[in-house]
């Protein structure tokens, strides 16, 4: 590394230190601006002796149920904040589950759009974020609002006082909804959807996607001023062409990550669902991008799936900035099941790939035996120092189909060579079983981690605690290729990898899915919201 590179990294490090990465709370989606999903502070949730006692301690609401939760809880100073499909944001007492306030008030209609097509467009679909706004603690979230713009449910950001729920500011329209006629490309069908706001320095960043590709819209990242909610016109990012032309695609379904002088974002499809005759220029779709945090200018772009192979593998999992011992990298899994790690610093102005799993040259090419469709790898991974834990299509991705990995966690050694990349592998256990060949019957959500203890929800309403084999001995050994039995593993050319121990497998009372949302780990307690319409607090 030359002096200039070292200085840049030093500056990055200094800026990153300012992020709330050490918070004992869980103040943002994936815990912090790096989106590491890591609770680094010690607590009973990291103690292998206590974790088996994990149990539900309170439930909200205590009777009945709300509509589905797709957003995740955030936790700050004894309060839990979580948005619901019904368009209300709830503030709960973190110790008791008692309702402190809701926004809008119970008697008022929820924040809702007239154009709903899937969970992304129903009420509040993304997690909130905590910030200090002009010296006051605030909870910031995105939602559709029929009181502005077209009156149909344009998307905007809200900043509320964490103590009272009083409005501090409401942004102007960020995501335009000017009609609800499916397929009508004369209307704007934008939405904030699953993009959780990123609070970074003096701005709040949020992605703009669309309503079920019907039709697809031009993907954008919008920044507003943290102090007022006004749109920062100095920051612009659009996924295709210019921000004013008619090209479309590259919806930003993910949450923006940050570190140093940059923000990081992933984008959706361009060539699918559109009768395009030629590729837009520039085409930032299906990419992981590093953007200047002040201007939105692209520093580098990593686009593994080119326009010609776009079968709708939106990159909609939020990426993590992994400050690994071998150097910082940006890591994430695309919807097609491939995980890619890109060096933070570009090489010759271009993205510099560190590794992919399964290993493969990128960009992919026609006839290379790979396929890239809407195969649902939409969950973000977790960073524990040099380890990255995620859903992944696996070493049998191209030989056996991609869906098997939807119920399997992979842990990768981010700094190791290819032979040691895979650290461990776990088929997250099912309680009700799956019919043979039914690979969609049991899926897992977004893992989070505290000191090597991984927590994850499932679509059967379970919360599991899984111990890295460095802190609890492995339960057993299996072949790195899930299609190969242990006995044949070496002969087939693969290696044996450990299967970590499952220390807790708690069935939540409502059985609601926990795959869009993540568990939040704060001060020794785990908070999770389900599609069954409940918020639960668990502790050992």
């Amino acid at each position, binding site marked *: 590394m030359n002096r200039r590179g070292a200085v840049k990294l030093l500056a990055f490090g200094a800026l990153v230190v300012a*992020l709330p990465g050490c918070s004992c709370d869980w103040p943002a989606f994936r815990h912090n601006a790096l989106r590491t999903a890591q609770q680094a502070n010690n607590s009973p949730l990291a103690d292998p002796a206590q974790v088996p006692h994990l149990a539900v301690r309170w439930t909200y609401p205590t009777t009945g149920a709300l509509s589905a939760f797709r957003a995740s809880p955030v936790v700050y100073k004894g309060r839990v904040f979580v948005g619901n499909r019904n368009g209300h944001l709830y503030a709960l007492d973190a110790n008791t589950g008692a309702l402190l306030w809701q926004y809008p008030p119970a008697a008022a209609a929820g924040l809702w759009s007239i154009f709903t097509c899937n969970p992304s467009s129903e009420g509040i679909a993304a997690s909130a974020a905590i910030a200090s706004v002009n010296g006051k603690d605030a909870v910031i979230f995105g939602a559709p609002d029929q009181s502005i713009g077209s009156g149909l449910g344009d998307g905007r950001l809200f900043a509320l006082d964490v103590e009272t729920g009083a409005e501090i500011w409401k942004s102007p329209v960020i995501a335009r909804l000017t009609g609800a006629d499916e397929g009508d490309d004369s209307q704007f069908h934008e939405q904030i959807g699953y993009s959780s706001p990123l609070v970074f320095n003096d701005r709040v960043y949020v992605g703009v996607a669309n309503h079920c590709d019907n039709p697809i819209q031009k993907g954008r990242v919008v920044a507003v001023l943290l102090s007022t909610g006004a749109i920062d016109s100095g920051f612009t990012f659009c996924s295709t062409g210019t921000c004013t032309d008619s090209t479309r695609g590259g919806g930003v379904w993910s949450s923006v990550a940050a570190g140093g002088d940059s923000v990081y974002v992933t984008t959706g499809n361009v060539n699918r669902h559109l009768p395009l005759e030629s590729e837009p220029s520039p085409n930032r779709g299906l990419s992981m991008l590093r953007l200047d945090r002040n201007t939105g200018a692209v520093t580098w772009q990593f686009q593994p799936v080119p326009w010609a192979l776009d079968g709708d593998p939106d990159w909609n999992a939020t990426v993590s900035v992994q400050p690994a011992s071998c150097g910082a990298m940006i890591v994430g899994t695309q919807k097609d099941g491939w995980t890619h790690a890109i060096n933070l610093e570009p090489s010759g102005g271009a993205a510099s790939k560190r590794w992919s799993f399964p290993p493969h040259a990128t960009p992919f090419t026609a006839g290379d035996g790979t396929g890239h469709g809407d195969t649902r790898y939409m969950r973000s991974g977790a960073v524990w120092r040099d380890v990255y834990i995620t859903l992944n299509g696996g070493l049998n991705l191209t030989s056996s189909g991609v869906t098997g990995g939807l119920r399997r966690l992979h842990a990768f050694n981010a700094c190791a060579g290819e032979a040691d990349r895979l650290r461990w592998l776990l088929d997250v256990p099912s309680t009700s079983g799956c019919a043979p060949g039914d690979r969609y019957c049991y899926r897992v959500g977004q893992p989070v981690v505290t000191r090597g203890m991984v927590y994850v929800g499932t679509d059967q309403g379970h919360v599991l605690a899984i111990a890295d084999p460095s802190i609890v001995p492995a339960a*057993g050994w299996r072949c790195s290729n899930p299609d190969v039995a242990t006995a044949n593993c070496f002969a087939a050319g693969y290696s044996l990898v450990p299967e970590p121990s499952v220390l807790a497998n708690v069935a939540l009372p409502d059985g609601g899915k926990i795959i869009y949302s993540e568990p939040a780990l704060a001060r020794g307690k785990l908070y999770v919201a389900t599609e069954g319409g409940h918020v639960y607090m668990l502790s050992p």
Partner: protein
Amino acid sequence: MHLVVPVALLAMPVSGCGEGSRGVALLPPAPSERMAISKSQPENPFVQMEGGPLARSSFAAIVGGYAIEVRDFLVGPAQKAVSVNVNGATVFEVRDGMGAVTIGDKTAAVSMGATFTVSEGEKLRIEARGGPLILRAHTFKAAP
């Protein structure tokens, strides 16, 4: 020095809460004796064919007087070239890895994404190079 300081600073916000900023060591390899075998084993595993590759059948049907079977073959990198009896006209796809195939007396290098055909009765030998080679075979023949 240039490397140490930035990396330490990078690590602080996520691992500096008393856990230290060092990396995570690799896990030791599988023990050679008394190794616990995972209960997670494949539903349809590859099975070693005598003197041949590992194989599994993923689809078989008899339709309109034709027998159609889809099989996967896995050749390990330590194996020498193995013979495969395709037992019918077969279209092969290379699903993973690279290697060489010999059909009759002609040898060709293949890699992921390649396709080739083998007629009924032709001799086929497969060799993996550099890692495992996985082929999918679609075989068509008259129903018995």
